[in-house]
Each structure stands twice: as C-alpha cells, then as structure tokens.
C-alpha cells in the first residue's frame, strides 16, 4: 500500500470514529447548518414538484370539472340552508355552555401549513412544510390534518420558515393511544416496509383478551406530554391476541396519500391535562 493511501485510510478511520461518536446535539447542529445552506434549493425543488403535481392533477381532472361545478352549485345551495340551522344551534350551545360554566380542556394554538415536499428521504416517511421557526414552531410538537393526527415536527430549520414532519406512518413515530370505550391503552406506530399501499398502523401492548372490535375509534391519551389528549388517530381494523399481549392494526383517520394542508399545534400543556384527569 502506498504511504499516501495509508495516511488517507487512517484519516478516514479517525473521521469515522469522530462522526459515529457525535452527540445528538452536535448532529442536530450539523443538520441545521446543512439545511440552512441548501434551503433555497429545497424551496426551489418543492415549488417545481408542486407545479408538476398541480399540472398533472389539472390534466387528470379537466374532464370532470364541469360536472363537479354543477354538483358544487347544488351542494352550495343545500349548505346555505344547513348553515342557518347550525348558527341557531351554535347560539343555543353557547347559551348552555355559559349556563353550565363549561371549561374548555383542549385549548391549543394551531398554525396551518402547506406540504411543500413529500417523502424527501428514501426510508423515513417524512414531509416538509412551509412553516417553521419563524412561525413559532418547535420540535416534537404534534401535527394534525383533516381527520386527525398526522405526525410530529422532527426538524426545524433555524432562521427559515420551513420544517420537517415525521409522519404517523413511520415506525419511529410512536403515540400513546387508547381504544375508545375501553380501558385499553397502547402505543401506536407505523409499520416498516409498507410501500405503495394504504398504510396501516400497528397498535401494541394491549391486553391479550382486550374487548376490541373492528371499527372502534383510537384516540391519543395525552400521556408522555407529546400529544394532546383525545385526538383521533384511526379505527381498529383487526385485533390479534398474542401469548402475553395483544396487537391491533389501525386504519389511520388521515389520508396520508393526499396530504396537502396540515395544522401544527402548540406543545400540550401537561399541567392542564393532569388537572383535567384529576377532575375526571
């Protein structure tokens, strides 16, 4: 071996040891610097992807547009009538709440964000959104979508209004949940190897003889302080009792294939949650 190659090999090994032993904070700092540098290109790439998708959708749906417009006009008329009824119910509800001195338990700030990039990495199920540090978004806060819980914020680029969200369908996104109507509490997470199909979540650590039936709702417990309580996660698809515990497959309530708008919430206030549990 040439002396120069040997020196490079030793340098490579030393570099490897340094990188592998980096602390999580150092890794985060490196990743933040990297994202700050490439942020303009990420945004450019995202916009290109959005435009391409919009064009494809336009081509796909152009034939149905006229029919949809007609249907929408009819629906609009119906909704106008329903809205009138709802206003009346809302007024009545407010009056009753005031009379009962109702306290709202799940009060949290929500920031709407647009999905600017889907699946930026090969194996990890993540999305990138157009709200970040400049909108007051922090790491590990829950992200909702139409239907229920979508995931949590994984990375926030300092000084930029962008962040990365790890989806509930990823194996590393774990959520403490409860099967509604039962005392059964478990941890739900995504499943490895689900590609090109409607993803199902895996609910673990249930009792082996849990009275769980397909169609039951799964909601967050709020335990652990990461997610707000009572957020819909999905519906039970099937239940498999094991030797020591039971496992269930959960159909997510969020349509992850067509995720375009998400809502980033503030971090849950644990003290208020604990208080509400005490009240119960």
């Amino acid at each position, binding site marked *: 071996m*040439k002396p*120069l*190659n040997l*020196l*490079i*090999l030793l340098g*490579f090994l030393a*570099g*490897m040891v340094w*990188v*592998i032993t*980096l602390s*999580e904070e150092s*890794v*985060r700092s*490196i*990743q933040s610097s*990297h994202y700050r540098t*490439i942020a303009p*290109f*990420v945004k*450019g*790439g*995202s916009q*290109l*992807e959005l435009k*391409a998708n919009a064009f494809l959708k336009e081509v796909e749906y152009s034939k149905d547009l006229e029919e949809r417009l007609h249907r929408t006009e009819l629906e609009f008329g119906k909704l106008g009538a329903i809205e009138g009824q709802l206003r009346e119910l809302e007024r009545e509800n407010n009056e009753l709440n005031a009379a009962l001195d109702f306290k709202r338990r799940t009060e949290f700030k929500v920031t709407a964000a647009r999905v600017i990039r*889907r*699946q*930026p*990495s*090969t*194996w*990890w199920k*993540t999305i990138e959104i157009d709200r970040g540090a400049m909108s007051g978004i922090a*790491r*590990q806060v829950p992200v909702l979508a139409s239907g229920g819980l979508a995931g949590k914020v*994984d*990375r926030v680029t300092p000084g930029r209004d962008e962040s*990365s969200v*790890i989806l509930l369908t*990823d*194996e*590393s996104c*774990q959520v*403490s949940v409860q099967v509604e109507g039962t005392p059964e509490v478990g*941890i739900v*997470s995504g*499943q*490895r*190897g*689900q*590609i*090109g*199909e409607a993803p199902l979540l895996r609910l673990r650590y249930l009792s082996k003889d849990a009275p769980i039936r397909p169609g039951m709702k799964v909601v967050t417990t709020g*335990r*652990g*302080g*990461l997610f707000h309580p009572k957020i819909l996660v999905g519906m039970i698809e099937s239940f498999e009792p094991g030797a020591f515990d039971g496992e269930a497959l959960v159909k997510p309530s969020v349509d992850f294939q067509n995720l375009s708008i998400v809502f980033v919430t503030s971090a849950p206030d644990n003290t208020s949650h604990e208080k509400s549990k005490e009240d119960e």
Partner: protein
Amino acid sequence: MIGYLVSVICMVLTAIVLQQFMPAIEGLYDARILIVPLVFLCGSVTVSTGSMLVLAFICGFLWDAQHLPGVMTDLGNTVYTRPAEMLRFGYSIILYACMGFLMQGIRPLFREGKWHVSALLTGVAIFLYLFAEFMLITFVRGEFILTRGIMLKISFCALLTMLFSPLVFWVLFKFAALFNHTIRYDGLKTRRRA
C-alpha cells in the same frame, strides 16, 4: 489529479443540490433517481483508493446530514420506553466506502475503456447500497421484514439511477480532459497530447 478530485467534489455538491429537485415517483413504488450516490460511484471508479475514501466521507456525511431523522431520546418520560432504534449518524460513510471499494474492483476493466461494465455495476451497487441500508434498519430494530414493495422500490431506484450513469461518465471524461487526468489506458485517451 488534485484538480480532477476537486472537480468531482464540486460535482458531488452540485448533485446534492440537484437531488432536491428529484421527486419520488409514486407509480414506481416511490422510487427516485439517487444522483449523489450515482456521482460518487461513477467518480470512485475514476480515482485512486485514497481519493475514493475522501469522496465516500464527504458523500456519506452530507447524505446523513440531509436525510437522517431525529430520535426520541430526549423525551425523558416513562411512556415511550421503547423508542424505535435509529441508525447512527455517519453509517452512510461506511456504506459509501463499501460501494466505492466494489467499484474499484472493476477499475482495471474501466481503464481498458469498458465503461459500460462500470455503468452496469453502478446499478448493482445502488441496489446493494439500498438493500444494505434497509437491512441495517432491520438489524437495529429487529423483526425481519422484507416485502415485495421494498424489493421493487430498491430495484426501480437502482434501474432509474443506472440509466443516468453514461451521462455522469461523459461529464467525468470532460473534467478529466480539462484537468489532464488520465483515467483510461486504452480506448478514448483523455490526456491531451503535446
């Protein structure tokens, strides 16, 4: 030699930028063209072992900085006691180096002018890279899972990426000619003759 290596490093940095514009193709099991590994693999067959290791370190480091998500180690509570294991930052450097050594194995053929063998091997190397990456995730998390979807995703990624290797080789030959770096003994000579 140094000028050529710097030009390949610049190509890697450009590839990182271009990679941002590469969407996953939903119809092909979310496959995508992996430009950074492609540039590394094509570049590694045209340089010495030492230079290949330098390239592997840069590519692996930047790849992990770009892609590796965080872990739930900072929660400090008793609910999430068994978080999903994540790969360590820097694991890609090892994978890149392994693929680089694989490409170096057919360097004599490449130097004879048989670049198409190297082009085919880039596809094989990308396949092995993704397969090894998935197996590493499986190893640290346990529970062996290998579905048809995963195999198809890996295969399509490798195939799509391989199709672009002649283009990358063409650019590398241009750089080699520009910096007077000899990467072939036979076939097309890139060294400028006096």
